[in-house]
């Protein structure tokens, strides 16, 4: 199980290959990648991601350990960035490997649902008009946790 919190970008292809190479016993590998997309209203200059360093890795590890306890996973990976990101840059990824696809899919969705609402990151959209907005948590993101 690997958890990385970093300011630097990551290489999706290289991370996918490295993860897949390490899970020879798995028939199913799922990855999720989150990308900075333009603000809903348009005109995004950057996304600033703040986090709580003393808590972040601890929270991510707790989420990943929970996923491994609940699904039959050979491995799981979480990478999450912080700092200033331009539109199109990758924010984070998760990867899961299991014998069967159901476990790999469910665990990846579980990781994402928990990262959204239980990992101490906060996103601020910096807009072309000079404004800036903290991204509000969505009620449906909190609701998504109830299914697990």
């Amino acid at each position, binding site marked *: 199980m690997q958890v990385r919190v970093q300011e630097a970008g990551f290489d999706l292809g290289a991370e996918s290959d490295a993860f897949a190479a390490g899970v020879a016993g798995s028939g199913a590998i799922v990855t999720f990648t989150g990308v900075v997309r333009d603000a809903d209203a348009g005109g995004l200059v950057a996304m600033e991601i*703040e986090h*709580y360093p003393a808590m972040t890795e601890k929270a991510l590890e707790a989420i990943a350990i929970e996923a491994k306890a609940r699904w039959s996973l050979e491995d799981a990976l979480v990478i*999450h960035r912080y700092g200033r990101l331009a539109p199109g840059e990758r*924010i*984070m990824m998760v990867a899961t490997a299991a014998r069967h696809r159901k476990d790999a899919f469910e665990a990846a969705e579980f990781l994402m649902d928990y990262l959204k609402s239980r*990992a101490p990151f*906060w996103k601020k959209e910096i807009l072309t008009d000079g404004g800036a907005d*903290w991204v*509000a948590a969505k009620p449906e993101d909190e609701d998504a946790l109830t299914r697990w």
Partner: protein
Amino acid sequence: MDVVYFAWVRERIGVPREEVETKAATVADLVAELVAREERYAAAFADLSALRVALDQELSDFDAPLAGVREVAFFPPMTGG
């Protein structure tokens, strides 16, 4: 006790971290003390339902006791992922 703030809570209060001398028994008591102190705290803590609290880097709630706690963190709901 160290008190840390993130996102718009940090912006409203104007500092990311401060040491607070307090005998507050619970998180809610600590919030009441801060709110009484200055307008910027009142602005940050106006709606507790919009806030989350962590004690020593573990999510907690406003009724939780502060005995033995070294770091209290206040922040809006998280938006990771």
